[in-house]
Structures are given as C-alpha cells and as structure tokens.
C-alpha cells in the first residue's frame, strides 16, 4: 500500500512537470500553429542561467525571475530572427528549423557550461512528509511544483479566454489574413506567443531541475513525454495538456514500478498511438475542423 501511494505520488509529480511543458507546447501551437521542438533546450538554457546565478550567491527566487525574463527574451528573439523567415512557407520547414535549434542550443550550453552533471537546488525541502511513522513521497518542493503548474494553467486559460491579447493571439494563429484585416498586429502577436511559450517552458525546466541533476540534455526525456502529453490533450487545450501530463506521469510510474522500467519509453508511445487511434484529435479536442 505504501508503495502504491509512493509510486502514485511520484507519478503525479513527474506528470505535473510534463504538464507544464505540454502547456508551453500548447501555448505556442495556439498562437502560431507551430510545434516547437527547440522548447526543451531553450528551457535548459535558461535553467543553466539560473543555476549560474544561484551558484554565485543569488537567491532561488531572483534567479527564477531572471530565468523567466531571459526565457521571454530568448523566445521573442528566436521568433523574430530564426522563425520569421520560414513562417508562411510549408509547415514542415518551421518544424525542421526548430529541430535544428534544439541541437544548436544544447551544444551551446555544453560549450558554455560544460557537459558535467550539476545538482540544482530546490526552493523547498526534499524530505517527504511523515504521516505517523511512514514517510510518503510528497515533499514541500513537490507541492510547490504542483502549485506552480496549476497557477500557470489557470493563467493561460484566463489569457486566452478573457483578454483581448489572448483573443488577438488566437486570431493571428488561425487566420493571419483575416486577423490583419481586422486590425490585429499579427507579427507582434506571433512574437508574443513565442515569448510567452518560452517563459512557460523555462518554468517547466526549472521545476524539473529543482532537487535533481541537470546537464545539457536533461530536458530530452521531458520533451518526449511533454509532447505526448500535449498531443493526448489535443494540442489545443490547456486543461487537456494538464490532464494529459498527469495521466502520462501516472501511467509511466506504474509501468516502471509494476511491469518493467525498460518499457517506460515504449509505453509512452503505445499510449499515444492508442489515444490517437481512438480519438484522432486528442482527448480534449474541442472541434475537428478548426482550420482557417
């Protein structure tokens, strides 16, 4: 029983980080209709900025803010400089460019910081809470991770549903021509979408790093699982991304604990295939024909 509880909690915590990453993918998809594979290594880059600051004596929270701001800037710059020239061409071009960026950023981190493992401090405790004599796999830090993901999700839903900026972003993603005719500054909206997505991505990078080990490729697994989570949720829905992330986290933890740890990656792909076969639009697809 204790094992089941601990495995479940472990799964939920990793799932919430997959969810955060999936949120970033959803955000960029909603605002630009591009799947950004470079998200992971961009997030790793900002985590390493934060780590450098923390190691030189800054507090975790200041470093977090700086990392998120640099994520914002990085996202905007990447969109303006690298993605803009291929936008409007075949969709595959932009996707391939993000793949190239993914490798380039990873290499850049290795050049600047080296490729050794480093531990990344956590803002809260890493010892599990005790109930009576038993300790459960829930730490103050994992509560912080869960909380941060929920806040981000709610914020994104509010942004897209209740603000003019959110509406304008969605409009520019769906139909650039129409949006432009209606007075939306499409170029800015695209940049803003990338920048915000990079902030959320950075946050997920920092959340998974806290209390663990980081190295230039530490986001690799997260990219795969986060992507699966986003597609499970329909790639278009923040709630879907969170539900997808948590389900993937739980499913993989159970596979690892009760079946075979060697099957974890395989299991993620099997889940993805089954869901796409049954519901091609993902679990939370709101409509199938939303293309402008």
């Amino acid at each position, binding site marked *: 029983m204790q*094992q089941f509880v601990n495995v479940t909690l472990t799964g939920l915590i990793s799932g919430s980080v997959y969810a955060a990453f999936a949120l970033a993918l959803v955000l960029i998809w909603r605002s630009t209709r591009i799947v950004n594979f470079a998200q992971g290594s961009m997030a790793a880059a900002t985590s390493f900025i934060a780590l450098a600051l923390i190691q030189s004596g800054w507090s975790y929270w200041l470093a977090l803010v700086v990392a998120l701001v640099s994520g914002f800037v990085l996202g905007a710059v990447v969109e303006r400089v690298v993605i803009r020239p291929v936008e409007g061409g075949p969709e595959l071009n932009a996707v391939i460019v993000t793949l190239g960026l993914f490798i380039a950023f990873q290499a850049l981190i290795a050049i600047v910081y080296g490729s050794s*493992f480093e531990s990344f401090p956590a803002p809260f405790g*890493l010892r599990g809470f*005790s109930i009576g004599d038993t300790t459960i796999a829930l730490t103050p830090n994992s509560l912080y991770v869960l909380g941060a993901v929920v806040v981000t999700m709610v914020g994104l839903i509010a942004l897209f549903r209740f603000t003019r900026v959110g509406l304008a972003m969605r409009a520019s993603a769906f139909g650039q021509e129409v949006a432009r005719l209606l007075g939306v500054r499409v170029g800015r909206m695209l940049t803003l979408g990338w920048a915000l997505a990079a902030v959320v991505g950075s946050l997920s990078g920092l959340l998974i790093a806290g209390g663990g080990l980081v190295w230039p490729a530490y986001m690799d697994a997260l990219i795969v699982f986060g992507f699966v989570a986003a597609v499970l949720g329909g790639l278009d829905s923040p709630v879907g991304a969170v539900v997808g992330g948590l389900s993937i986290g739980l499913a993989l933890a159970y596979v690892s604990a009760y079946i075979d*740890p060697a099957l*974890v990656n395989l299991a993620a792909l099997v889940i993805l295939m089954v869901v796409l076969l049954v519901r091609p639009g993902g679990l939370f697809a709101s409509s199938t024909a939303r293309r402008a």
Partner: protein
Amino acid sequence: MTRSSRRLTRILATATVASTLAACGGGDGGSGGGGGGENEASDIGITEDSIKIGAHYPLTGVAAPGYSEIPTGVQAYFDCLNQEGGINGREIEYIYRDDAYNPTNTSAVVNQLVLEDEVFAIMGGLGTPTHSAVLEFLNAEGVPDLFVASGSRLWGENPEDYPYTFGWQTDYESEGKIIGQYIAENFPDARVGLFLQDDDFGEDGERGIREYIDDQIVAAERYVPGNTDVGPQIAALQAAGADFVVGFNVPSYTALSQLVALRLGYQPQWFYSNVGSDPALVGSLLQNFSQGAVSDASLLDGALTTEYLPGVDAPDNAWVQEFQRIWDECGGEGELTNYRIYGMAQAFTTAQALQAAGQNPTRDGLVEAIETAGSEWEGPTFAPFRYSEDSHMGTSGMQVSRITGTTAEEQTPVLVTDLGNAEIEEFDGEQAPPPANAIPDVESVVD
C-alpha cells in the same frame, strides 16, 4: 612548461636513451636482435619514435561524471613517461574520443581510431554496452584491445573468441561474490535489496551475490540508464522491507538513489559496488543541495563499498603519492581524483605491456607478451592479474571498505577469487612499491 621546452626535454631524453641503446648494441658485438637493435616501424601505429594508442570515453552525457576524468589521468601519465624517454625511445601518442556512452557513437569513433588515425592498440575503452559494440570489429581487425574499463566477463572469459581483448579491473561477478560473502558473514539477518543497472553490469553482480546470499535477497530492482526517475524502483525496495541495499550502478545513479531515498525517508544500510561509490564525486553531484534541503553532502557516510586500487583517501600509499607527483607535474586542471588514478594505473599496465612486447613490438607480439608475463607484473592494483593463454581476465582482488566522509576504512583484507565456483581466499601477497618515477622496468618476453 612551454611546449618547446618540453619538446627539447623529450629530444634530449630520446637522444640519451638512443645513445645508451647504441652503447649496449656495441657491447653485444653487433649480434642484432634483443634490446640492441634499431627502432623500426614494426607495425601499424608504430614508428621509429612513436607509438599511437587510442581510446573511447563518455566525455559527455549521463555517464560522463567521473569517467570523463579518466583519460586526463592517462594523458598525464603518458606525458610524464614521454618526458623520461617513453618506451624504448618511442613517445606515446594518446588519442581519445567521446562516445557519450552511446554504442552507436562508439562504433563510429573506434572506426575512426583504427582506420583513420591508425592506432597500434586501443586502451581502456570504457563501458560494457559501448565496448561490446566494437569487440568483434577490433578482434576481426587484429587490433590489441587492452584493459577494457569495465568489469564484464566478456573481455577475458573466452580468449579463443576474442584473442586481442583483455580485461583489467575486478569483474563484477567476482565483486558480487566478495560482497555476498561479506554480507553473509557480517549481516546474516539483513533483508537485502538489489539496485541494479539493467545490463551485464547488474546481471553479473547479481549472479555473484546470489551465490552467497540468495535466501537473504528480498527484492531486485533494475533501472535503465538514461531514465533518471528511479523513484518507483527505490519505493519497491522500501516496500519489500529491504534494510540493506546493494547497488550495482554508475555514480550519477548513486546520487539519484540517495535523493529518492531522502524523499521517501528510506534509510537502509547502503552498499555501492566499486563503480558507483566515489564519495568525492557523489558529494560534488549533491553539493548544491547543501545550501538548502540537505544538511551536508555526506549522504554516503557509513555506506559500504569495495576497492581494488588505492585511492585519494589513502594519501600515505606510495602509489598514490607517486600518482600525485605525476598529476602535479604533468596533469591538467583540477585535483587528483580516483578516476585519474584509475587512468594512470591503466596507463602503467599499458607501459608494462609495451615494454614486454620488445623493442619493435607487433600487435600479435603484444598479445603474446601479456599472456606470457602479465600475471607476474606488479603494479598499483591490490592483487595480481589473471592473464594467461586461457584467461584474459584482469585482477580479481578486492577489499570491502566503509565510507566515512571522503575517506574509506578497510573492513576486510584483500580477497581474491575467480568466476564461477572458485573459492574466495585471502590474498597473501603485499602491494609492491612503485618503481622509480612510476615507470615500469619489465623485460621483453617476445623476440
């Protein structure tokens, strides 16, 4: 210090050796052969004044912490050796390449070393899955594959299948046996859980341990290298009621397992096999936590481990002192670490093998030399090697130690054993002191 002055030293040293050799030759009355002849380009990778040696290591990726330091130790040893004239007047040219602990990369870089760089031999190739990928290739090409940096039995068990490959460190099965016997004798009531890397490393270790304490083992959990979430595995060990956990894992997974155990409030007696137990490395992996949640970096305090080489925790050992001198004189940045000592110790054995292969070594002659004389070489390892025509296994000796802070206290004398049913015995020899300048003086056994 500068490149040119170092080169000058080398030239002078080479000239001295050459003139000495010439003098010897004269004394022999020009009989040729033996030590008195001239240096020739006797095989691929050998010229009159150089020997090219290649290696592959994970310099990046999940296995890089610690292991990426090994080649810097090898390099330091060879640099110092070259300053003293190298081997028979030949400088050692050492080329190592990054395979990121990925077997596909290993094949590519070893191809490059053998076919493009044209090395004489491969030395200290690191890792079981990685080196397995090039085992057939090296043996098909007839490239000596010395002292693989892994304790798999694959390298030495069947010399007829892989005549060019030699193991070096204590194999994981013998290590498992020694650990198993230690637990049976000292912790007969422990409920033992195993934390294993899911490949030959974990399998061999498990086989050895089970020979002694099969009935004490309550759970065996495996992790897949690359998947850093070991929460479910540690939770399963805890749930099985294991109060003594033996890990056959690489160093980064020692840190990860400690972090999860902290999260779960799980405090068994830990026993990490030699590979995963370097306290300095694990401490440095965990150091950033010291300012927050973890009170200090000595999570490993009280853990048990095994040793087959003296380490930095034994600064009084004559070998360690000699390696410290080499690192100070010829090393690069950073401190002397156990991984650098490992590299230097392997380089020392390589130097012994090259000397034994005669003045004009050939690839087949090198293999013959190790088979003939390798079991008699004295070096930094606690116990001798098992090399012969029938076995290419390396050393088999180990002692059990307890980690306290960054040092280790011996718990047993040096124990030696072999694969299968071989008994575990106390090793009755003494560690030989290092030769002058830690440069071996082995006679040629080929000619």
